[in-house]
């Protein structure tokens, strides 16, 4: 589901871009930051467990 939410956010950013809606950049930033945090969690969890 989380990946579907990321893709929905991407689609909403595309729609905002098309409509020149001012939320375009905030939506893009939220998607990128959320994905970066999700990826960072994925990268650090096995490392933490290995100690």
């Amino acid at each position: 589901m989380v990946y579907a939410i990321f893709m929905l956010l991407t689609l909403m950013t595309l729609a905002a871009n098309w409509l020149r809606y001012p939320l375009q950049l905030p939506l893009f930033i939220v998607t990128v930051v959320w994905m970066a945090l999700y990826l960072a969690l994925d990268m650090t969890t096995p490392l933490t467990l290995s100690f």
Partner: protein
Amino acid sequence: MSRLYPLAAAANVWALVLILAGGFAVQLITGELPCPLCVMQRIALMLCALGPLHILLSARDGALTARAAAVGNGMAIVAALLGAAASGRQVFLHILPGDPGFGAPVLGLHLYTWGLIAFACQIAASGVMLIATSWLEEKPAMWGGLARWTAIALAAIVIANLLSVIAEAGLHWGLPESPEDYLMFK
């Protein structure tokens, strides 16, 4: 340059759409489902495409400004860094000698290695586009039709991947490390 710039942005979006379509075709033809990191890379490719699309849509009914070009290229670079982190992570997961890697290789390289190359190329392309804003003349150049069809193509590939990942994950929050079935239909 005012004519070339939106054309280069459109070529950038179409290149990313073709890469996404290629990945989707491999999924459908070979039956290999994308792993969580593969899906993250696909989303990063979609986010990369939003940058040049922003440039193209800004030029659809008026002059392309240097501000729109800077914002679009900045979006593409940030998304490409995110994608490079995901694909780099996956390359390192399979870097040990004897590791067969995830999925079948395409033209000798695994899809995540191709992904890392694509993200590096995207960063380079956006850097060149940023340098090229020096020669950007803010003259009106109508690109309505090209912008519309490019946006439709990107939206179509995003929706196809969205439906695919919903079928793959079912009602689960995440995805299994090595997905083998569409969980929605199990």
